[in-house]
């Protein structure tokens, strides 16, 4: 076993759709230690088997993990693990108590029931984009509003508050903010959510997610509010970024776009492959855990107390599928890590799938000649957020 080199974490990319420069070389050959700008050192694991192990082995705690970026210079977590309802910061039985009632709200069949409404929202937004005429910005025309509207409706947030939620949820995901700024945004959302939750509790409704959580679980008011904030924030940024990034990858690979055009009925399999590839190509370190015992990963001994960050570049590992570095929309869905793995796997994965399948399919059916108005490499990308994506996607058709 050789001594691991410590490399700095950075997010600069030669190409906006591909991993940070030099990252693949830095992490190849097994867990390596990297240092974050705030001084936190963590092992980076990037093999398919290693990532699955770290994300599913209970000896890696999320309570003691959390994104290194989301720590102050003193190493203090911006998001307090003792904050009631902090579902991403707790392990084991404590986590299951919160996770299970939420899983029910995101069941596959429930998400399938939402499909007609998702289709309607997509159609309305593409109608508006067409009416305004080319060139249009795909991000503000479709990618951003779609997931925000759907999650707000699913939760049961009245329409008059939806704009505020959209704006504030975006602020919550900034990675350069201080702990005070974060708390100020969360407090603002809590002020609006508290009367909504109280009202649904009083009425005893269970026909939306907030009602279900308020009236059919043992969650405290503090837990309810914070879970709602988490769901709104998670439903806001992630899916919109991926809808944009998927489109950009297809612009860059016309032969692959042709596969989707030829058979739009394959949108479900196409989205799985795009998810695998896009998340793999984002590269960089990601979800972070802390070892509670000594554990060997990919032949390296990780000591109790060490931080471990997984790189979902593992989606490009040949152990997952042949020619893993290529986007191949004709391949069958594989067991990728695009939504994570283990007990904390993305709660909204089935909702995201429905939105991405309907959004992508409808976009290219409706605008068969859709193309970028400027080169993909010259578009503006957002690197100031926990999630990465295009700030604007100017398109013509």
């Amino acid at each position: 076993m050789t001594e691991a080199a410590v490399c700095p974490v950075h997010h600069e990319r030669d190409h906006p759709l591909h991993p940070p420069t030099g990252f693949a070389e830095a992490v190849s050959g097994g867990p390596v230690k990297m240092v974050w700008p705030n001084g936190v050192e963590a092992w980076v694991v990037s093999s398919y088997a290693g990532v699955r192990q770290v994300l599913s082995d209970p000896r890696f705690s999320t309570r003691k993990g959390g994104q290194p970026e989301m720590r102050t210079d003193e190493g203090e977590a911006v998001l307090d693990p003792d904050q009631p309802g902090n579902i991403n910061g707790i392990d084991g039985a404590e986590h299951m108590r919160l996770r299970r009632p939420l899983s029910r709200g995101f069941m596959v069949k429930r998400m399938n029931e939402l499909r007609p409404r998702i289709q309607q929202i997509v159609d309305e937004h593409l109608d508006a984009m067409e009416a305004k005429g080319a060139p249009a910005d795909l991000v503000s025309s479709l990618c951003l509003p779609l997931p925000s509207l759907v999650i707000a409706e699913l939760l049961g947030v009245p329409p008059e508050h939806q704009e505020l939620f959209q704006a504030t949820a975006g602020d919550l995901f900034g990675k350069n903010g201080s702990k005070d700024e974060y708390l100020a945004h969360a407090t603002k959302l809590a002020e609006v959510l508290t009367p909504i939750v109280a009202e649904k509790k009083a009425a005893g409704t269970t026909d939306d997610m907030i009602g279900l959580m308020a009236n059919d679980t043992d969650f405290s008011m503090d837990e309810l509010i914070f879970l709602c904030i988490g769901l709104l924030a998670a439903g806001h940024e992630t899916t919109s970024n991926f809808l944009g990034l998927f489109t950009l990858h297809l612009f860059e690979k016309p032969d692959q776009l042709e596969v989707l055009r030829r058979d739009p009925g394959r949108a479900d399999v196409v989205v799985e492959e795009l998810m695998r590839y896009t998340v793999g190509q984002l590269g960089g370190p990601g979800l972070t855990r802390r070892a509670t015992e000594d554990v060997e990963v990919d032949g390296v001994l990780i000591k109790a107390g060490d931080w471990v960050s997984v790189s979902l570049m593992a989606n490009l590992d040949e152990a997952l599928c042949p020619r893993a570095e290529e986007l191949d929309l004709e391949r069958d869905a594989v067991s990728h890590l695009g939504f994570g793995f283990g007990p904390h796997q993305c709660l909204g994965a089935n909702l995201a799938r429905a939105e991405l399948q309907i959004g992508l399919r409808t976009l290219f059916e409706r605008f068969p000649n859709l193309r970028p108005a400027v080169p993909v490499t010259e578009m503006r990308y957002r690197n100031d957020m926990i999630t990465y994506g295009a700030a604007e996607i100017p398109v013509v058709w």
Partner: protein
Amino acid sequence: MRQNATVRIDQARCIGSGQCVLAAPDVFDQSDDDGLGLVLIAEPPAELLPAVRDAVDRCPAQVVTLEE
């Protein structure tokens, strides 16, 4: 013997992600009461086994097992 392959879900550790339903919709469902995975066909015929193996692989909580 293939025809005696048995599928199980350890419900105590299931997180209700529904990945098994996506992989093998004929074999799995989710409970309306708690969203947890349900086995519809405990001894699936041979033609459904590839999808069940996929469900075993995809389950994020690793609670789906297939005894062949």
